[in-house]
């Protein structure tokens, strides 16, 4: 088996895709974003509760999708929970750079999310890894500006 493929689909990823953490919805006030990837039918429904300073108090997701999109969402929720607005934004940017640009070593702060950096060797799968993160990016936007119409701005990534 190709080493790049094995690196991408290692046990941690498969484990998160089969037993996603923070899978579910949040009770009470929360920003709710639906994202999908129309070309393959992947879907995510992300709930985020932000604190008064914009910090990520809690987040959960449901959805269906491939192992990469599910594992990315699961690892993302673990990483972002409890982070300040600034830290969350930095993580979002760092992750996006790693999977879309991929010129540099994945920074340490990404922790287990670095396992997904191998996705850059499979260009058609980058959108799978990014699905949850685009939804989170939109949730941050909505938290600061009020809800945007999901019709126009749902994070499609075909």
């Amino acid at each position, binding site marked *: 088996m*190709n080493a790049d493929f094995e690196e991408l689909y290692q046990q941690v990823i498969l484990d998160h895709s*089969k037993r996603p953490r923070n899978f579910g919805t949040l009770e009470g006030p929360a920003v709710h974003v639906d994202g999908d990837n129309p070309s*393959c039918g992947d879907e995510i429904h992300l709930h985020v509760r932000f604190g008064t300073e914009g910090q990520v108090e809690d987040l959960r997701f449901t959805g269906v999708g491939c192992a990469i999109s599910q594992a990315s969402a699961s690892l993302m929720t673990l990483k972002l929970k409890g982070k300040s607005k600034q830290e969350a934004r930095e993580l979002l940017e760092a992750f996006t750079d790693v999977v879309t640009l991929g010129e540099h070593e994945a920074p340490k702060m990404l922790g287990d999310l670095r396992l997904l950096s191998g996705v850059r060797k499979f260009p058609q799968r980058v959108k799978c890894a990014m699905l949850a993160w685009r939804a989170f990016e939109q949730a941050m936007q909505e938290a600061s500006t009020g809800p945007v119409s999901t019709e126009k701005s749902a994070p499609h990534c075909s």
Partner: protein
Amino acid sequence: MSDPKSHRPSLESYRSEFPILHQTVNGAPLVYFDNAATTQKPRAVIDALVHYYEHDNANVHRGIHLLSNRATDAFEAARAKVAGYLNAAAPSEIVFTRGTTEAINLVANAWGNANLKPGDVILLTEMEHHSNLVPWQQAAQRTGAQLRFIPLTDSGTLDLSQLDRLLTPEVKLLSFTHISNFLGTINPASLLCARARAVGATSVVDAAQSAGHMQVDVQAIGCDFLAFSGHKMCAPTGIGVLYGRASILEQTPPWQGGGEMILSVRYESSTYKQAPSRFEAGTPNIAGAIGLGAAIDYIEAIGRDALQEHDQALALDAYARIGALPGYRVVGPTGDRGGLVSFVHESVHPHDLTSYCDQKGLALRGGHHCNQPLMRKLGFPSTSRASFYLYNTTAEVDRMIEILAEAHRFFS
């Protein structure tokens, strides 16, 4: 040559004539099972394109010079070849298009705008490719006609018991796929067209998945229009065909305007040529049409009955063996089917599965196969699909079965 086991003709000798097949992908020999998306091209077709560009290239129907005459002759010879291939009454019933999608859009616009009005019904089936659905949704929006759908049985065939209820006098058009690119179902085309005719409805057949795989005789089918794509039957991309029955084509106004389709142009108005030229505005895909002619020669030399038998045998074998693998489920009817099999794994997403197969050199399609409404109805976000053509072998199906079994272990 024949296969000793089954006495059916082996097409294996043709394989060497497809240069692209002889390569490795991700370190493994290529197994190309994405033929329903597009087929590979034999040397004979590639050579026909090269010959045209090296010797005959010129615009058609225009120049008073030798090359233009040669190009025009070759282009019109391709049209005659297509007419023969479909058993059309005359070459003038053959309109060249970019492909199936453009052919259906031509009917939906040119015929649809002239013939559909509020209260009319466009009858489709639940298994249509987006390209035989979206143009009709747009036509319905423009004209006020309504869409109606022939439902499917649980086994994935059309529920013909519903025809009496659905085929009312308001139905002005019936359009259906000959072979489903997702389920593999072969629809009873001549029966459906006869039923449409009985209520005075015009019939359209989407032959994208059948034209290169089986006998398609427009007179035996009795359709008014039929569309297919060259690239799914050994020809280049960018060339396709709309067959239109002469009596209907003559009554249909043009769709696109431009050069080639006019008799005489004044500043305020123009008069149009007869069909098929009326529907071919602008410089056509001359090389594509010539390539399609070469592809038809190639397929006819093999024989469409032999081809269908070959593809179907591979599909039935794959259907039975994938269905018997732990974790997998096959989709679509048992028995008579087109040369393709869609399937799902109980826990592995088709994207992961298709990526895994790609690592082993096996090219499958994973996704919604441009059948979103049906997939949604059946509860599959997406599936994987293996689709076969004349150069595929039983040994390649064996390889696929091994790879799918390995994938089951890898992901479990």
